[in-house]
């Protein structure tokens, strides 16, 4: 087996490994960090860094502009837009990011049949699903929370009211955390259903945008026909309006629904239940998916 090339200087024989074996929890943590880094192209080819980094920059630039305006305009006492509004305004960027990175995270393992290699190691199905889900949600949270952090720091530099700003920032963080969990769940389930990356991308964009378009259109009709009561219920049927409803009801956000009313606390509770149900459902669907994809 030893190569015949003259460049071979020495061939120390096989060395066995007596060091520590850190087991399941460590493997799960490693998979999490590898997937999280991978969601921004770190540890991957230069080409795969372009899109996530570009989208990350696109997410941050408006926040920087907002901050610049807030500091430059004399006499302003608050940021031009609310923390909770930011994710709603940039939902297309968030959707594109999810559509590009969720398939990257799970479809590759399915397509190249790497999944059995994971499951022939100490980790179990639940570890794989939890690590992938947590990594995707964390990547989404970094994407959506960083602009809020920029806005908050900018607001403090502009000497806006600290308590007010911090409260708004906190509400924004809770909102984007929920959004990250919900969107990641939906995105991963879509991506895990097909080993083909292209289908995954298309499916995620479709699931995020088509219901949003439909819901907004029907809400608009309901509003113009004076059927305002149904607007709140219609919002339950698309991911982004779901987040809108929850944060309007509980996090002091201004709703983007027609009329700007948004659901009351009672209906808001239904919104929250549906959102949490979808997150739990996504997790269950992923678990079921990998029961089959096992070995």
């Amino acid at each position, binding site marked *: 087996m030893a190569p015949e090339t003259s460049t071979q200087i020495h061939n120390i024989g096989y060395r066995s490994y007596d060091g*520590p*074996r850190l087991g399941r929890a460590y*493997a799960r943590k490693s998979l999490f960090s590898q997937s999280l880094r991978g969601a921004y192209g770190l540890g*991957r080819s230069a080409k795969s860094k372009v899109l996530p980094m570009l989208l990350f920059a696109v997410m941050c630039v408006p926040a920087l502009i907002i901050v610049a305006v807030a500091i430059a305009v004399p006499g302003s006492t608050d940021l031009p837009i609310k923390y909770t509004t930011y994710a709603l305004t940039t939902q297309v960027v968030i959707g594109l990011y999810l559509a590009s990175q969720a398939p990257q995270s799970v479809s590759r393992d399915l397509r*190249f049949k790497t999944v*059995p*290699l994971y499951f022939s190691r100490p980790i179990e199905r639940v570890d794989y699903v939890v690590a992938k889900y947590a990594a995707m949600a964390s990547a989404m949270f970094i994407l959506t929370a960083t602009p809020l952090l920029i806005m908050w720091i900018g607001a403090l530099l502009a000497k806006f009211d600290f308590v007010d700003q911090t409260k708004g920032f906190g509400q924004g963080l809770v909102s984007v955390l929920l959004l990250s969990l919900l969107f990641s769940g939906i995105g991963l389930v879509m991506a895990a259903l097909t080993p083909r990356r292209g289908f995954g991308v298309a499916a995620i964009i479709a699931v995020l945008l088509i219901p949003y378009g439909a819901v907004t259109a029907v809400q608009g009709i309901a509003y113009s026909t004076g059927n305002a009561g149904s607007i709140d219920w219609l919002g339950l049927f698309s991911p982004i309006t779901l987040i809108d409803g929850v944060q309007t009801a509980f996090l002091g956000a201004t709703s983007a629904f027609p009329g700007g009313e948004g659901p009351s606390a009672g209906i808001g509770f239904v919104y929250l239940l549906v959102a949490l149900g979808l997150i739990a459902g996504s997790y269950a669907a992923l678990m079921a998916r990998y029961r089959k994809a096992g070995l």
Partner: protein
Amino acid sequence: MTVIATESLSKRYPRVTALDRLSLDIGPGVTGLVGANGAGKSTLIKILLGLSPATEGSAAVLGLDVHTHGSAIRERVGYMPEHDCLPPDVSATEFVVHMARMSGLPPTAARERTADTLRHVGLYEERYRPIGGYSTGMKQRVKLAQALVHDPQLVLLDEPTNGLDPVGRDEMLGLIRRVYTDFGISVLVTSHLLGELERTCDHVVVVDGGKLLRSSSTSDFTQTTATLAVEVTDSDAHPDGTAALRKALTEAGLTLHAGEEQGLPGAGHILLVEATGESTYDTIRDTVADLGVGLVRMEQRRHHIAEVFRDNDQPAYTAQQKGAGSDGA
């Protein structure tokens, strides 16, 4: 010490019985698991890794029960799947480091072990290039490396020679042999080709339809009689040296087998002589010298396991053996 032990292990799916009361007792060394496609080899591996519960019976790997200690078993066992399992866009080094960490190795150890293991399976500079550009033989080596990187006590290799050309097969089989002799790691290797395993394995287990057909050591199969392969050159006096030697050896009272070496280079020029003792070697040497032809080779050939099964009335396996050269799927 027992590496793998199963006790009337059964696995039934709604419509098919994959394993039918299989009892095995496999010790250290290289063990071949032979069976036709669908004989239950992959099902057995899944159960041994603790990934699929047995319908009845029990199994233990390295003394650990598969039902209760699946995770602990998988930490000490390596697995090389039959199918492709490598992402094309990362390098072998990156991939194997990741897999080492998935096996629980700390980051520094994972990198060191990866470099060592890739060198041992014969991947050098190319290990920094994306796997997508590798040949099938190189991919098989990466698959083997990821199964060995955490220095397991046992590796389960599912059809490791699949898709390889004859040279690649020989290299892979030699590598598998070294996994035990040099690395001290026991091996369970599956194949549907009996002929491959005689060179590599200490022990062969044959399963069919989920049942144990035969389990014995390779030496039991092949040591009963030795066969010598003799090849000679032609000379002016004997334009067909092989034919002349055959005649002379028969006259000298030696038993010659019909040549069954189809597909190997120079197959028609190799005589298979039954060796009855030390004197056979002398007789051949003297006969060759008397004829004045050149002796190209005289080497010991073990019987093919397939011949043993042919004696035991297993026509199905001889058919597979004959298909060995062309069947790569």
